[in-house]
């Protein structure tokens, strides 16, 4: 048997180098220089102890400059906290004052988008803000619903832009950071229109965050996970139990997978399904729960998703949402 070295080389050359790598390398270089300078002062008391001095001097992004998944759990905590802030401020729950009149089969679509772009030295932001139009079946724009959704999206994106601007001002533009926000329509079926945002913040490590907005096509209303289920039904427990079970099964089958379930780090254990958790309904009508990077697993696992079998919630789900 004669394996073709050319083909292996081809595969090797196809390894895609991430766009953000360069800025990460620059950050590492800058950090090393900073640490050398700081070390020169404490050199005598602490000769040549690189690891220790690193921890002492990386004040700005503690432990996150190198995101080795197994030894640097602290980075995960920081990123997760950032995420929760965004959710709390822009979650669909603020939209309850929306019109209650039922509409049959609204049409939601992205009509345009605005872009926020900025680039300066090692800072870069590319943020796309879509504008949605919601119409009833006769094609008349539902102004309230449309405005509600767009203003929710805007406060979410404004938040991201403001955080970037704040970092830029604080560092005088000398920070190394890239923020990228993109979106896609993940569901557009008879019952739901769902718009999914992907946010990637690259500082030292890269953190990925998701946000999904849903429009109920029957009512034109924005909905959250709880709205898929009957009032006051406990949907969290069965979903939580099912995800835990899936995590354990995956970990047993594949050693490279790690979730924070029954782990030896109680502080990051996956303990409950947050009300604000992201979700969507996939093509086969199944509920899919989406966790951000670091939320339930070490960073190297990235954004993780779990498809929930409909039968475990069949007694409490409202008609028409899930198959």
């Amino acid at each position, binding site marked *: 048997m004669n394996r073709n070295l050319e*083909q292996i*080389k081809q595969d*090797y050359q196809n390894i895609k*180098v*991430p766009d953000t790598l360069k800025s*990460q390398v620059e950050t590492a270089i800058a950090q090393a220089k900073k640490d050398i300078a700081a070390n020169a002062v404490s050199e005598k008391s602490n000769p040549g102890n690189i690891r220790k001095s690193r921890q002492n001097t990386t004040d700005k992004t503690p432990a996150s400059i190198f995101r080795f998944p197994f030894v640097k759990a602290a980075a995960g905590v920081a990123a997760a906290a950032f995420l929760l802030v965004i959710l709390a401020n822009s979650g669909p729950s603020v939209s309850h004052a929306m019109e209650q009149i039922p509409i049959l089969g609204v049409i939601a679509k992205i009509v345009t988008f605005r872009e926020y772009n900025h680039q300066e030295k090692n800072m870069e932001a590319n943020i796309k803000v879509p504008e949605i139009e919601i119409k009833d079946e006769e094609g008349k724009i539902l102004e309230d619903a449309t405005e509600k959704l767009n203003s929710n999206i805007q406060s979410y994106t404004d938040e991201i832009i403001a955080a970037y601007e704040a970092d830029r001002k604080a560092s005088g533009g000398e920070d190394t950071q890239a923020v990228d926000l993109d979106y896609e329509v993940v569901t557009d079926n008879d019952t739901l229109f769902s718009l999914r945002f992907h946010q990637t913040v690259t500082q030292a490590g890269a953190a990925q965050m998701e946000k999904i907005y849903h429009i109920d096509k029957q009512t034109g209303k924005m909905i959250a996970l709880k709205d898929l289920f009957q009032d006051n039904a406990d949907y969290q427990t069965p979903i939580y139990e099912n995800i835990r079970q899936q995590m354990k099964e995956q970990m047993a089958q594949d*050693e490279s997978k790690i979730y924070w379930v029954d782990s030896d780090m109680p502080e990051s254990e996956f303990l409950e399904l947050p009300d604000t958790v992201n979700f969507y309904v996939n093509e086969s009508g199944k509920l899919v729960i989406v966790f951000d990077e670091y939320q339930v697993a070490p960073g190297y696992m990235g954004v993780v998703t779990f498809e929930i079998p409909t039968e475990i919630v069949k007694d409490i789900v409202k008609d028409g949402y899930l198959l």
Partner: protein
Amino acid sequence: MNTPKVQQMQQLVEQELLASYDALYRLAFTYVKNESDAMDIVQESAYKAIRSAASVRNKAFIKTWLWRIVINTSMEFLREKQREISCDVMQEYGKEDIYLDFDTIEALDILNEKERAAVVLRYFEERKLQEIADTLDETLSATKSLLYRSLKKMKIKLTEGEFCHES
């Protein structure tokens, strides 16, 4: 302690890092096989390199020295991961026969750390044998036999002259 000579070396290391980070990334990728770990390794390596730039005596060796840091950091990482996982489950590593059909970088899995670096640097990055020998801290002839052994393990036959020709 930051003498002009040290600073100059630091500068050169930095230049080399910025010139070759993508090759360093690919090399790391052949060890860890995923984007985020490979990125971490390149970053960690860049950090280490700048921190210890003072220890480079001859600027001609910066390139091979960086490769060596990346290889060592990758191995360190894999061992760390291995230790973490083997707390619960002991795994057997007997993969020798699984990859027979693959014409992908998975084919490199059959090689040990030195062999892998030698193959990547020689045939994919097209580096000189002497540079590879420096990277691996081996003699030229030991490097040649290392490469020869690696190709044999991967069941690759090269035509006469392809193996040792010098660029």
